[in-house]
């Protein structure tokens, strides 16, 4: 259980980091928090020729929160984003989801952007970005590009990040007024990856009817599965909606696979139960009630 040999690079500036990544090409891998990468190295599931450690690059740890949303830098640790009052105010779903990411000690080191680039379909952060319609900013020696969440996650553990690129930051948009969010998941043990999980966002109109309702499901597909369930809610006051019936629409539209952790049927069942809970809590939060 030791990492395979690699050439270590510890660039001191962003320019230097991008130069090294450009030269390393497909053999280069960025190290930020390392809480997903180093287990893969220790178990020799990955053997990159070059590790580009960006921990010394200045200016990447920022958390900028404002009315449009929250921009999280490549070195912002899970714990820092979780504790940020500004981030919680601008986009409450971040803190709701971060509390479910591994354990506090892992969150001290792991980064939000790293979780996105790792693109584990069982992870919380990709689902949050996908549900909110956020984006990831990628930099290379040639320039920068902003990739929307819908195009960023391309498969299990696969993202749109190209060789030579560094994920600089991610943007989590705020929701309109009268919106609420929630995240529920079931894991075999506290802190494990979820067997299934659902993030929900509900926006109400001025008469407190559902104007928009969406969920993002984890562990039920190769990438986070985002479903719009507004139509299933109907033009009814949020307080009188039967969320279990709306959850049926989620069950019908997902196609989970079975594995050693759970059968496909069990995952489908769980996703429905969790969708009902998450939607109900999100609607309560949208009405300004504590869930």
């Amino acid at each position, binding site marked *: *259980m*030791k*990492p*395979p*040999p*690699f*050439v*270590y690079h*510890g660039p001191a500036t962003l320019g230097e980091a991008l130069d090294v990544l450009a030269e390393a090409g497909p053999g280069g891998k960025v*190290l930020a928090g*390392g*809480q997903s990468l*180093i*287990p893969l*190295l*220790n*178990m020799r599931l990955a053997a990159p020729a070059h*590790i580009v*450690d960006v*921990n010394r690059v200045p200016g990447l740890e920022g958390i900028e929160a404002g009315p449009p949303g929250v921009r999280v830098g490549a070195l912002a640790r899970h*714990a820092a984003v979780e504790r940020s009052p500004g981030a919680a105010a601008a986009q409450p779903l971040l803190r709701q989801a971060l509390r479910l990411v*591994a*354990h*506090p*000690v*892992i969150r*001290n*080191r792991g980064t939000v952007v790293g979780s996105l680039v790792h693109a584990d379909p069982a992870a919380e952060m990709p689902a949050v970005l996908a549900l909110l319609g956020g984006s990831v900013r990628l930099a290379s020696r040639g320039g920068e590009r902003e990739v929307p969440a819908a195009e960023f996650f391309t498969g299990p553990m696969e993202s749109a990040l190209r060789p030579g690129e560094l994920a600089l930051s991610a943007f989590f948009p705020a929701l309109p007024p009268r919106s609420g969010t929630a995240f529920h998941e079931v894991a075999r043990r*506290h*802190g494990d990856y979820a067997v299934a999980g659902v993030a929900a966002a509900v926006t109400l109109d001025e008469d407190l009817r559902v104007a928009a309702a969406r969920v993002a499901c984890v562990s039920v597909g190769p990438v986070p599965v985002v479903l719009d369930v507004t139509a299933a809610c109907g033009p009814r006051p949020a307080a009188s909606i039967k969320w279990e019936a709306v959850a049926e629409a989620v069950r019908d539209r997902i196609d989970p696979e079975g594995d050693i952790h759970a059968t496909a049927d069990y995952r489908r069942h769980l996703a429905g139960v969790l969708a009902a809970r998450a939607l109900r809590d999100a609607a309560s939060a949208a009405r300004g009630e504590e869930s």
Partner: protein
Amino acid sequence: MNETRHHVTLTVNGVLREATVPGRRLLSDCLRHDLGLTGTHVGCEHGVCGACTVLLDGEPVRSCLTFAVTVDGHEITTVEGLARDGELSPVQRAFTECHALQCGFCTPGFLCTVTAFLRDNPVPTEEEALEAVAGNLCRCTGYQNILKAVHRAAELQAELHAEEDR
């Protein structure tokens, strides 16, 4: 492959220590093999068990999921650095009093985790204490005595602070 070695300087338990290590040297192995501090235990080596937890600039982290070269220039506290002037720390005393260890393999990780937790949250609720130790595995105790020790350590720490203030 002839591996490049990197010179690293760490402040470990208040003492400046130096080592020359390959880039892939885990902090856990650097502490144990290069610096001879074998109090940090290595269990699963993929971040699950928590036995290797140390404090990096005061915050608990998995030393098996950190490269030594990444933390060059930083401060590390290991289990060897918790006692003060030959006196066990409140957390260490509480673990002894409450029988919160049997074989002791997981204990260094628990002690480092709980030390940082009680510094940030000196009077935790039952639920907060449970969450704090949930990332560390113990195969002997069944955790009940570890939870008792967390609360006992909070009491001992409060007594110690009261004495210091007098």
